[in-house]
């Protein structure tokens, strides 16, 4: 894969900046939601939706589309902002995130939201779902690739490891797992709440090809996804090292912004940094 031209990288960086602004506005208006873990996955979503995924926002059920499953469903605001920007639905919907009567539920809901493949929120289920999609693609001899984004804290769920075994056992090289490794969960640092390290060697031991990258470096992410595409006979995992609350200095690395929306004053302060 040729590397992206610098102008394209700059353009994508600006998209990421605009998406952060959108996410913060959505969350402030909703008065609740998961700020830190939405801001940490912005570049991952930009790299996938703006570069890697073969998809058609005007035809969300296109059979040959690549799939994306947001296993860490609480990152929904970032995904909604990305989908709206691409034209999956009217961006006006973003203002009604989490509101009574609004389309955009607090966590992804496939029956109402174009572009959402499966409902998520209760953690640990997305990798299994992705494996099922991958098995279907293999049966259909389809080149479709399945991307699934997990939280690092989410890998504390036992089902993730059941699914990790399944993907390796069935040689699902069309599955690309991504871990948003922001090192924090609601109650604190993963290292203190429930240590998951050494995470790379765990996945390798489970039979996965593991690639680590800076989760905010767009060319790095795209290169990692390109590399995953070349792996045959086993699933691959991108450990994306990220910063929770990325892009807003007073939120970065702060556990208190896991499940709390910005106030109006915090939003204004954040927008000054992002504009």
């Amino acid at each position, binding site marked *: 894969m040729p590397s992206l031209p610098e102008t394209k990288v700059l353009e994508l960086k600006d998209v990421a900046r605009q998406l952060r602004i959108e996410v913060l506005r959505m969350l402030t208006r909703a008065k609740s939601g998961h700020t830190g873990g939405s801001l940490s996955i912005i570049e991952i979503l930009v790299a996938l939706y703006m570069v890697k995924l073969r998809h058609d926002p005007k035809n969300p059920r296109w059979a040959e589309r690549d799939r994306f499953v947001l296993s860490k469903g609480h990152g929904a605001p970032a995904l909604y902002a990305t989908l709206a920007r691409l034209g999956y639905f009217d961006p006006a919907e973003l203002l009604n995130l989490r509101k009574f009567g609004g389309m955009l539920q607090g966590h992804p809901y496939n029956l109402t939201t174009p572009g959402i493949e499966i409902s998520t929120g209760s953690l640990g289920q997305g990798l*299994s779902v992705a494996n099922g999609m991958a098995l279907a693609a293999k049966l259909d001899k389809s080149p479709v690739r399945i991307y699934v984004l997990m939280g690092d804290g989410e890998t504390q769920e036992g*089902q993730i490891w059941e699914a990790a075994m*399944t993907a390796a056992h069935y040689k699902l090289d069309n599955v690309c797992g991504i871990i948003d490794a922001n090192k924090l969960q609601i109650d604190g640092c993963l290292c203190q709440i429930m240590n998951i390290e050494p995470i790379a060697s765990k996945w390798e031991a489970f039979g996965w090809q593991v690639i680590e990258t800076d989760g905010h470096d767009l060319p790095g992410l795209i290169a990692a996804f390109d590399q995953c595409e070349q792996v045959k006979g086993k699933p691959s995992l991108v450990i994306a090292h990220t910063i929770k609350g990325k892009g807003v200095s007073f939120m970065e690395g702060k556990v208190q912004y896991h499940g709390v929306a910005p106030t109006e004053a915090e939003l204004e302060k954040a927008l000054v940094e992002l504009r």
Partner: protein
Amino acid sequence: MTQSLGTRDCYGDVLVKLGQQNPNIVVLDADLSCSTRTEKFAKAFPERFFNIGIAEQDMIATAAGLAASGKIAFVSTFAVFATGRAWDQIRQSLCYSMQNVKVVATHSGVTVGEDSATHQANEDIALMRSLPNMSIVVPADGIETEKAIEYLVNNEKCPVYVRLSRGKSPVIFDSQYRFQKGKAVLLEDGSDATVIAIGTMVSRAMQAQQMLKKEGISVRILNMSTVKPIDQGAILAAAQETGAIVTAEEHSVIGGLGSAVAEVISEQCPVLLKRIGLNDCFGISGDAEKLLTHYGLTAEAIVKAVKEIIARKRKA
């Protein structure tokens, strides 16, 4: 009722038949394929069978992914593991996401026998009944199993829970039988009381009907093979026309068929009701028939309940 068939055996056979007709059918199991009889499908269509190992949560959500990509997914294991172990996966990835997955569980109720309480599901209907978008089918015999599975593949795209048994049971229906989801099957008409039964208790209800007939008592027998959505019309007609209802299920009286019937009649047509089932207890080891007797899940127990409820009706 001379012939006996295992509901799980008929399930295994019909899966192979449907697999030949429909290349979109896939089957998943969690290391119990010889017991659930999905091994027949596995032998016939190895590329469409996925053994997920002893990982029920992963199995359910994997099936959801297959269904989300257009497959008709069957998942099978024992009822206790399918519904209890993987309840949240069924809730979120199947029901809330509305995926075309048929959860077909075997080894329900105390007739699991010797394996004891850890393997006897007496709470599974209650667990599944509380989930929006979930339907529940409990076939009364092998023929109804086959017909119901065919119906669900050809007519439904929603999640469904089908409850099968370990043992063989007397054949009630003939090959002309047509399963209709949501419709109670009137097996015998009667006027003094109605017995509404499911699964293994249907043949026992029919035995009870014969015994009561000899004593001049006329009992209506309904096979409520669709527990959800339940046939309210048939229940209300039974309430109005016979004035007394006995329910019979190899399941806890909490949350199962008895509860479902109670909900309908107490809101719309209160009549006397007696629920036969497990009375808020775990099972024990033993031979299946001995356990059914021990827990009062027999034709004799149904006869006794019918007589009691008719006596209460006359006093009222």
